[in-house]
């Protein structure tokens, strides 16, 4: 009989990850953070405030979406609560020309790149399998639900960047690719193949792992007996482990590796240690597999509270936070109002875009359905 996996391993105790802000919001870089510190120099005061706005608005949006699901307005919700710093820091580290391949929980990154978060809800309301046009929203590709599949798409895309002649040496135009995945995805073959290919072809790419400790009900200790960041060395990739609840660490490490990748330095791996405060999805009940004290520990490391303390220590006025809270509430109210207005698409759209060029089967079945439904209408008249 296999040994049972122990409950979540707090890998933050195994090594000091890159961290700038301690849990009380004090600027106290760890030794590992020093090499990334220069990345923070280019951040303006406005940038630092924007990070907070990004996190707070998406936190409020996430709560609203959870309510909408409980009220029957969404089939499912995928909470991002607790992972805002990992997402906002990395998302803001990408340049406009970069391409981002999300998994399905990166709502904060989606918003940063210009996705109307209503489009995320349209998917979870059962109205679309896509929702946006990547080229119109900062090259933010579609969510991918099969675990790890997007890592290969990201690697292929990054191979294409290389085949197109990158790098030119100008970081304002040279592109990089940022791909998100979780601790569960590290066990998938696709994810491992993606890293093999990326290092083989030296793609301009950053693999951003949000290790939120749980793959639905299975702890990361079942996925790996070694810190996941250590796996990168086996692929031949530099790797950095960060405190994923520190938005500055997430920004600096991701920025550093993206800039290195876009300049021709090859792929890199970032492991963000974070925690899924909520359920995997609204179909899940984490009290069945997680201890209350573990949750309490991670709640004490809340990324939003930590960053707010930091900004307050830096002298940011209370009116800023009040203003962001109001903006977040307005955003959530607007999302609610627009969600309730969303009706189903016309039924025959299921036949559209099955192929990009005409194929007789969907054409015939669309016509058949139209006649079939018309038959009911005639019967009523």
């Amino acid at each position, binding site marked *: 009989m296999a040994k049972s996996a122990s409950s979540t391993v707090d890998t933050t105790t195994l090594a000091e990850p890159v961290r700038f802000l301690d849990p009380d919001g004090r600027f106290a870089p760890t030794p590992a953070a020093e090499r990334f510190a220069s990345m923070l120099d280019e951040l303006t005061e406005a940038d630092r405030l924007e990070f907070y706005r990004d996190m707070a608005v998406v936190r409020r949006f996430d709560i609203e979406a959870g309510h909408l699901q409980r009220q029957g307005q969404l089939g499912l919700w995928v909470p991002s609560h607790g992972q805002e710093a990992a997402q906002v820091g990395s998302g803001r580290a990408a340049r406009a020309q970069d391409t981002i391949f999300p998994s399905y929980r990166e709502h904060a990154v989606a918003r940063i790149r210009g996705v109307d978060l209503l489009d995320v809800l349209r998917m979870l309301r059962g109205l679309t399998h*896509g929702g946006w046009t990547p080229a119109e929203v900062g090259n933010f590709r579609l969510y991918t639900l099969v675990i790890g*599949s997007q890592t290969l*798409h990201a690697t292929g895309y990054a191979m294409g*960047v290389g085949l197109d002649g990158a790098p030119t040496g100008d970081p304002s135009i040279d592109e990089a690719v940022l791909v998100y995945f979780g601790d569960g995805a590290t066990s998938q073959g696709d994810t491992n193949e993606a890293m*093999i*290919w990326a290092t083989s072809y030296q793609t301009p790419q950053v693999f951003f792992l949000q290790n939120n400790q749980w793959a639905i009900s299975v702890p990361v200790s079942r996925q790996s007996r070694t810190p996941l960041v250590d796996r990168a060395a086996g692929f031949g990739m530099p790797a950095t482990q960060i405190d994923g609840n520190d938005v500055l660490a997430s920004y600096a490490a991701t920025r550093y590796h993206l800039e290195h990748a876009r300049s021709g330095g090859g792929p890199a791996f970032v492991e963000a240690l974070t925690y899924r405060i909520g359920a995997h999805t609204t179909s899940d009940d984490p009290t069945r597999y997680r201890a209350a004290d573990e949750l309490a520990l991670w709640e004490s490391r809340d990324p939003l509270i930590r960053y707010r303390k930091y900004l307050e220590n830096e002298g940011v006025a209370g009116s800023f936070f009040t203003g962001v809270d109001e903006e977040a509430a307005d955003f959530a109210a607007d999302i609610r109002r627009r969600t309730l207005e969303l009706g189903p698409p016309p039924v025959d759209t299921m036949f559209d875009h099955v*192929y990009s060029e005409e*194929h007789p089967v969907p054409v015939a079945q669309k016509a058949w359905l139209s006649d079939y439904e018309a038959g009911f209408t005639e019967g009523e008249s």
Partner: protein
Amino acid sequence: MSGPGVLTMAKALNQGLRDAMSADDKVLVMGEDVGPLGGVFRVTEGLHAEFGGSRVLDTPLGEAGIVGAAIGLAMRGYRPVCEIQFDGFIYPAFDQITSQLAKLTNRHEGSATFPIVIRVPYGGHIGAVEHHQESPEAYFAHTPGLRVVSPSTPNDAYWMIRQAIESDDPVMFFEPKSRYWPKGDVDLTSPASPLHASRLVRSGRECTVAAYGPMVSVALQAAEIAAAEGTSIEVVDIRSLSPIDYGPLLASVEKTGHLVVAAEASSFVSVSAEIAATVTERAFFSLEAPVLRVGAFDAPFPPAKLESTFLPDADRVLEAVDRSLGY
């Protein structure tokens, strides 16, 4: 290159790939051993020398990686032609083909196309070890979003690979291994048929045999034998398994009243079963007998010394023709 020639199917495919790569520098060839070796069947022979390693990619060994990376390359504007080395090696890529590639056009709702060709050498008669002689086409024909074709002659191979590469949809391109080496006329000036057309390849009066890929030559052989015995068989090359062009087939059945569908694949839940069902629906009153299927047995592909019994041959086709005509 222009003008007619006599080529093997492997050479015709090679020429088709070369001409497609010359015509469009976004066309890439990628797979295991497709570079300096030229592929295990030499279909990509010489392409690496001519176009270089950034157009002909010898990839790491991983089928999911080949198809998954091709998807990303297509998102970047490339037109990848993937080689899966053998039929039975395609399953590690099954998610990337059926859950990703097949659905991505639909998920993008018109904002992206995925012009990817996946070449799959398939079928038996080469005496190979396990997983090297299979016919997995039904899995892919069953999946909306994929197009599935299989040439039976060098001329079709040349034109169909070029047409498949020009298609903006994903195309599963099944190459009958047993037909790689026989030579045939190739007219390099113009295609005989559109990619998804089926075609009458032998006229007859009494029974129609529909076949595709490796079984077309077997059906024609059966028709020769039958003709010597006084039975007139008509043969339709289906060529495209998704979509299926029923026009020539229905016209033939309306004439003969009898249909036998022959394939190397096992018959249970097969493309042959789909053809039998559809012809029954659409030509019911023309049929003088039930549509019969001839295929491999519903067992795992056996060790090679048994394959000549496992796979259908001209005699098994004729046995079915006799049963049909006996109704």
